[in-house]
């Protein structure tokens, strides 16, 4: 039996959510904008989804804007807050989508300032002085390194300096942390469905009541004029349902994932015995639960992923890259890894549906595969 341990990239849709999705499509739920009963029914489903999501983050429904992806929600927030010559503050460990937005801003003449990180990927906020017009784009828990950041520190820093808009990416964090919008102190929070065992193709931007959104796509006034395009009602409902279930089971899931991580760590033993080095935080309480990341200096991350796939274990490198490229992971470089190590990153991320036996087998497969590849490398470099 194959083991799926790439939940940080997106979990399979859970059956209850798939059932709801199918039921809504079968019911014929369509365009919620119209003057007839069918549209009103769709509108009611959409309103309920929005209200459920709002309730989870303790905001008003009108603060929730649905988008087709978390990347789009990030872009929408930036488009609303960042002017052409404005200042953007972010980190080198952000995921590719965020880095691309920062690069585009810089190319257009804007200023980009990077918050450095320590070897675990945690923000180094000492000496950071945001200006009134500084817009920050930060990920609460990095999917690549699994490091959970100190939200209270960034909040205090931003309040004290009266910095500009604070945009936080909570796509990974929303599955495992209680996130109340006002407590976080963000101006915008990005959440997505795919990492919550919900469908892909739906995400949302939660914004403070005083923020005005500038739409990326002008259209027929949908989403209060913030995003053109007919709302994907069944997807929104499925997203809300997945979030509700995740929220209800949050503590149990966290405990379950901690247990899986312990089993995996114990079965694997010291990573160094397999030629691996741990990345992210050594302190498991400062990591996303169920998240394990390593680097190997003797293989490309893509090759390790391929070999493990062949051995029946589905994992990833953790950094979305052009297929098969040799580009080192910028996040790993920012954490002080060598270029060879930064090309050899892997991430094993368990989810709610994994069991203890799978965690144990995943460790055994990882150990055996590393041993085989390292033996191959040894033969290759010592043969004439």
């Amino acid at each position, binding site marked *: 039996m194959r083991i799926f341990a790439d939940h940080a990239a997106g979990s399979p849709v859970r059956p209850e959510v798939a059932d709801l999705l199918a039921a809504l499509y079968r019911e014929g739920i369509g365009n919620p904008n119209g003057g007839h009963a069918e549209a009103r029914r769709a509108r009611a489903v959409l309103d309920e989804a929005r209200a459920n999501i709002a309730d989870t983050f303790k905001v008003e429904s009108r603060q929730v804007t649905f988008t087709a992806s978390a990347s789009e929600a990030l872009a929408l927030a930036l488009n609303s807050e960042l002017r052409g010559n404005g200042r953007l503050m972010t980190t080198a460990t952000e995921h590719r989508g965020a880095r691309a937005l920062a690069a585009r801003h810089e190319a257009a003449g804007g200023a980009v300032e990077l918050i450095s990180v320590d070897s675990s990927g945690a923000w180094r906020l000492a000496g950071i002085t945001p200006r009134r017009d500084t817009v920050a784009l930060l990920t609460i828990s990095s999917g690549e390194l699994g490091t959970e950041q100190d939200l209270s520190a960034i909040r205090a820093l931003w309040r004290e300096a009266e910095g500009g808009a604070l945009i936080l990416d909570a796509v990974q964090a929303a599955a495992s942390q209680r996130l109340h919008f006002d407590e976080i102190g963000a101006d915008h929070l990005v959440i997505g469905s795919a990492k919550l065992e919900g469908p892909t193709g739906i995400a949302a931007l939660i914004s403070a009541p005083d923020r005005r959104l500038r739409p990326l796509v002008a259209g027929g006034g949908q989403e209060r004029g913030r995003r053109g395009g007919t709302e994907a009602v069944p997807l929104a409902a499925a997203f809300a349902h997945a979030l509700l279930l995740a929220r209800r089971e949050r503590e149990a899931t966290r405990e379950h994932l901690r247990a899986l991580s312990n089993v995996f760590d114990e079965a694997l033993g010291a990573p160094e015995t397999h030629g691996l080095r741990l990345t992210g935080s050594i302190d498991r309480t400062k990591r996303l639960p169920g998240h394990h990341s390593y680097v190997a200096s003797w293989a490309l991350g893509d090759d390790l992923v391929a070999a493990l796939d062949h051995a029946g274990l589905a994992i990833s490198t953790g950094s979305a890259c052009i297929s098969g490229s*040799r580009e080192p992971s910028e996040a790993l470089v920012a954490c002080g890894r060598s270029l060879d190590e930064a090309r050899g990153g892997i991430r094993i991320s368990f989810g709610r549906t994994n069991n203890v036996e799978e965690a144990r087998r995943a460790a055994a497969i990882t150990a055996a595969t590393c041993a085989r*590849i390292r033996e*191959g490398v040894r033969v290759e470099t010592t043969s004439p």
Partner: protein
Amino acid sequence: MTASGLPSGWLAEPEATRSERVLVALSGGVDSSVAAALLVEAGHQVVGVWMRLHDAADRVDGGRKSCCTLDAADDARRVADQLKIPFHIQNLEREFAAAVLEPFVGAYLGGETPSPCVGCNTAVKFGALVGKGSALFGCEAVATGHYARRAVSADGESWRLRTAVDQDKDQTYFLHGLSSEAIARARFPLGGMTKSEVREAARKRGLATAEKPESQEICFVPDGDYRSLLRTRGWEPQRGEIVDEKGRVVGVHEGSAGFTVGQRRGLEVAGDTPRYVSAIDPRTNRITIGRRESLERREITLSGAATPSGELPAGAVLHGAARIRHRGVTAAGRLVSSGGGIATLQLDDPLWAPSPGQTVVLYEGETLAAGGQISAATAIHA
């Protein structure tokens, strides 16, 4: 020589008698697609890979017929999906740069003609990829869509390449650098088929690549303009003299690395009879030209001369039919080894325009007995 064209002591490769774990290099073209399909149907455990060899892969295909764009990777993935085999992209950029790109640039800058496909087959496809296939997937063999067959010695210890049934498509010339061990681990499922049979096999199976046109160009020079590649690699073309065989200056050129021996195009010299590049001296940046017949050679000096089983000892003589170009004419002759990889090819009939750097192979019947590179000495001592 037997009726099959195999020299005595050599046998046709035996049919596989058990299921093997085979890595197939899928290029995204029809040949490797069919090769993979045949292996799957024969009951082997097949792993499909597409090799990322250079950054030309990042460019959009734009309708070009190259095997190394991401579109080609998509085609390879679709075929793997149709065949229900695992598919992975393998990065071999570093190996490709060392074995193919750098020698390619170095050859032109040194006045020689490179053989990039030979280096790629020897060091990348049947070199590094074999190691990766074994280490990552436990594969014991690597298969490609090359048109070639294999022959094994009667004692089963040594392997040679054998020409493909389809003589027009035979690719043993490009594979000559494979050692006996590499040939033992190579699989060429298309060796017994003609191109039209392969095309038909792809159509019959509904493979996504069945109607894909042939790729002809050097894969990392998708626009066919190797000179612009040289420029990106630091080549600064210098104007130089074109001289005739008596040393008289008859014209100028815009950079000797832009020419190869046997080239006619781009020579702006007066005269009625066609002239061809007969020698290139990168040190003086001078190109020598001559009439067509002046480029004929009966004696060619080789470096790196070897059989699949290793270097030839001094004094060894091999008889056979020599070829200096893919699909070029062959000429009967003998290869006389001086040891150390140096050898002289003595031909009964001349071959035209042997170009230093290019590959020479010697066939014994249908088997490829030896190969090497035309050395610069050929042009100088002509």
